C-alpha cells in the first residue's frame, strides 16, 4: 500500500510525534508498505526530497505559503501536493495531528482522491470553538475515514468537541514504544537521581519539579535532578534552580537523542513527569519498560500511562509540595518503589507494545482502503 504520512514536524526536529512517526514509517515499510513522509519545509538548508534511514521524506513549504497571505503561493504548494500524490499514486494519507498544513491535503483531494486516516496526538490541536463547524479541524474530522486517538483522554476530548462525528468513527490506538535494547539495571538508592525528560516548555511543568526538588534536597542532600531536553524555558529554569539554591544539584544535560534516552532512564532512581498537559506521556511508559517508578501528574492521558499506587504515584498538577511528598515516599520506601518499577514494565509491555501499535495501524490501513474501494465500486455500479 502506498501511504503518505503527513506530519507538520519531522526530523531533525525532536519530539514525541516526530519520533513516533519515524518509527511507524519504518516499521510499516518493513511490512511492505511504501511509506513516504511529507512534512513542513522549515529549514532552507535541507533538501526538498530526502531519505532518512530508508524512509523517503518530502519537505513542502506549507507554513511559508500560508503565512505569506498570497493566493499564488498557496496555489503553488497545493499543486505541489497534488503532483506528489499523483506521482506516488497514494492509496492512503495518514495525517498526524491537526495543523494548518492539512489545508493542502484537503484542497488537493479533488486532484487525487485518497482516503485519510487521522491520528490525534493531543496537545493544543483541538481549539475549542463552541460548535463552530466552519473550520479546518471540523472539515478534516468530517472527511477522515477514521480517527485514531493516542489515548482515551484524547478521544474523550475529541468526542466532547466534535460529538457523534468523532464518536462513531474513532478509536484508541496507543502510541506504543519499542522495548529498549538494554535491560533494566538496579536503581541508585544512596545517591538518588531524579529524572525529568522532555521539551523545556511551560506545559511540561519542570518548574514545579525544580520547586519540589528544592524540598526533596533538604532531606536527601545527595539527591540530584537531571533535566534532559531543551526548549524556550531552559534559561528560566536554570535561573530558577539558582534562585532556589539547588543549581549545584541540578544537571541540565540538553537534548538526548531518541536512541539514548533508555540509557539515561536506566541511571535514574525515579522519573518525574510533572506536566500541566500530556496527551499520553511516553516518557512514563519508557520509564516503566526500564523498571523505573514514576511520579506524574494526573492530567489527561497520564493516568493511562501510570497506574496510581501500582506503577507509580499520581499527584495534582502545579503543586510542588505534593510532588515533593510523592517523591519522598518513593525514596523512603525503595522496596515499594522497586515493585512499582517491575509493575511498570509489565504495564508498559501489555498496553504499549510497539508490535501491537503497528498491527493496529496495519489493520486500520487495510480496512480504510478496502472500505473506500468498496464505496467507489458501489458508486460506480450505481452510476452505471
Amino acid at each position: 500500500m502506498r501511504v503518505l504520512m503527513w506530519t507538520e514536524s519531522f526530523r531533525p526536529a525532536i519530539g514525541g510525534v516526530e519520533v513516533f512517526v519515524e518509527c511507524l514509517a519504518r516499521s510499516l515499510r518493513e511490512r511492505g508498505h511504501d511509506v513516504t513522509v511529507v512534512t513542513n519545509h522549515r529549514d532552507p538548508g535541507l533538501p526538498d526530497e530526502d531519505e532518512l534511514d530508508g524512509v523517503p521524506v518530502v519537505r513542502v513549504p506549507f507554513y511559508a505559503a500560508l503565512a505569506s497571505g498570497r493566493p499564488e503561493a498557496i496555489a503553488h504548494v497545493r499543486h505541489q501536493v497534488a503532483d506528489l500524490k499523483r506521482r506516488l499514486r497514494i492509496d492512503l494519507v495518514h495525517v498526524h495531528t491537526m495543523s494548518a498544513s492539512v489545508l493542502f491535503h484537503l484542497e488537493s483531494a479533488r486532484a487525487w482522491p485518497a482516503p485519510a486516516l487521522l491520528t490525534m496526538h493531543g496537545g493544543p490541536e483541538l481549539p475549542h470553538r463552541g460548535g463552530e463547524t466552519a473550520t479546518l479541524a471540523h472539515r478534516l474530522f468530517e472527511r477522515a475515514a477514521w480517527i485514531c486517538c493516542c489515548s482515551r483522554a484524547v478521544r474523550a476530548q475529541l468526542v466532547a468537541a466534535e460529538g457523534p462525528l468523532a464518536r462513531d468513527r474513532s478509536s484508541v490506538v496507543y502510541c506504543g514504544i519499542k522495548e529498549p535494547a538494554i535491560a533494566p539495571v538496579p536503581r541508585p538508592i544512596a545517591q538518588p537521581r531524579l529524572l525529568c525528560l522532555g521539551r523545556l516548555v511551560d506545559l511540561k511543568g519542570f518548574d514545579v519539579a525544580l520547586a519540589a526538588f528544592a524540598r526533596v534536597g533538604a532531606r536527601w542532600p545527595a539527591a540530584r535532578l537531571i533535566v534532559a531536553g531543551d526548549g524556550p524555558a531552559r534559561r528560566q529554569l536554570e535561573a530558577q534552580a539558582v534562585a532556589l539554591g539547588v543549581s549545584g544539584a541540578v544537571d541540565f544535560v540538553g537534548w538526548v537523542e531518541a536512541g539514548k534516552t533508555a540509557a539515561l532512564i536506566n541511571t535514574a532512581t525515579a522519573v518525574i513527569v510533572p506536566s500541566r498537559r500530556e496527551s499520553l506521556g511516553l516518557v512514563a511508559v519508557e520509564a516503566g519498560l526500564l523498571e523505573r517508578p514514576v511520579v506524574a501528574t494526573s492530567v489527561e492521558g497520564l493516568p493511562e500511562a501510570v497506574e496510581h499506587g501500582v506503577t507509580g504515584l499520581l499527584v495534582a498538577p502545579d503543586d510542588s509540595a505534593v510532588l515533593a511528598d510523592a517523591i519522598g515516599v518513593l525514596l523512603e520506601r525503595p522496596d515499594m518503589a522497586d515493585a512499582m518499577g517491575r509493575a511498570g514494565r509489565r504495564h508498559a509491555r501489555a498496553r504499549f507494545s510497539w508490535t501491537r501499535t503497528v498491527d493496529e495501524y496495519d489493520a486500520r490501513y487495510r480496512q480504510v482502503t478496502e472500505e473506500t474501494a468498496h464505496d467507489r465500486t458501489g458508486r460506480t455500479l450505481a452510476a452505471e
Partner: protein
Amino acid sequence: MIEPDGRWQPNDREVSSKVIDGEAIIIRLSDGIYYSMDKAGGVVWGMIEERRSGDEIAAAVAVQYDVSPDQARDDVLRLLQELVNERLIVAASDAPPPIASPPSPASGQGVYAPPRLNIYRDMGELLALDPPAPGLMDITWTDSTNKS
C-alpha cells in the same frame, strides 16, 4: 439586503485574493481566515474582480452552467450576502472595466452546484501555533496557473 443591480468588488483593504485554475482563493489578512470557492463560486469571484453587479454575475453563471436564470440569481445574491457578511466584498467604487469577452455558453464547466464559500476560521489560530522558520518568508513564489 443585496440589490441585484449593485456592483461589487473585493475588499482590498482586508483581503488578498485570486482566481487560479477556476478556483477563488481568498484570505482575510486581518485575522488569517482562509476562504475558497470553486466551480460556479470561482466564476462569481472572477466577476466580482471585474466589479460586476449581481444581475451580471448571475447571467454569467446561467450562461456557463445548466441552471435557470432565476436559480442562478437566487444563488448568486445569497452568496453575495454571505461575502458581505464576511467582509470580503464591498460596493464597487467606480465603473466596471469593459468586458473583454462575453462568457461562452456550454463552456464545459460541468454540472451545476450552487456556489459555496468554504471557510476555515481556525487557520490564523493554527498558524499561530507554529509560525514558519525565519528565512522561509523570502521564498519567491511563482504563479501556478499554467500547471494542471
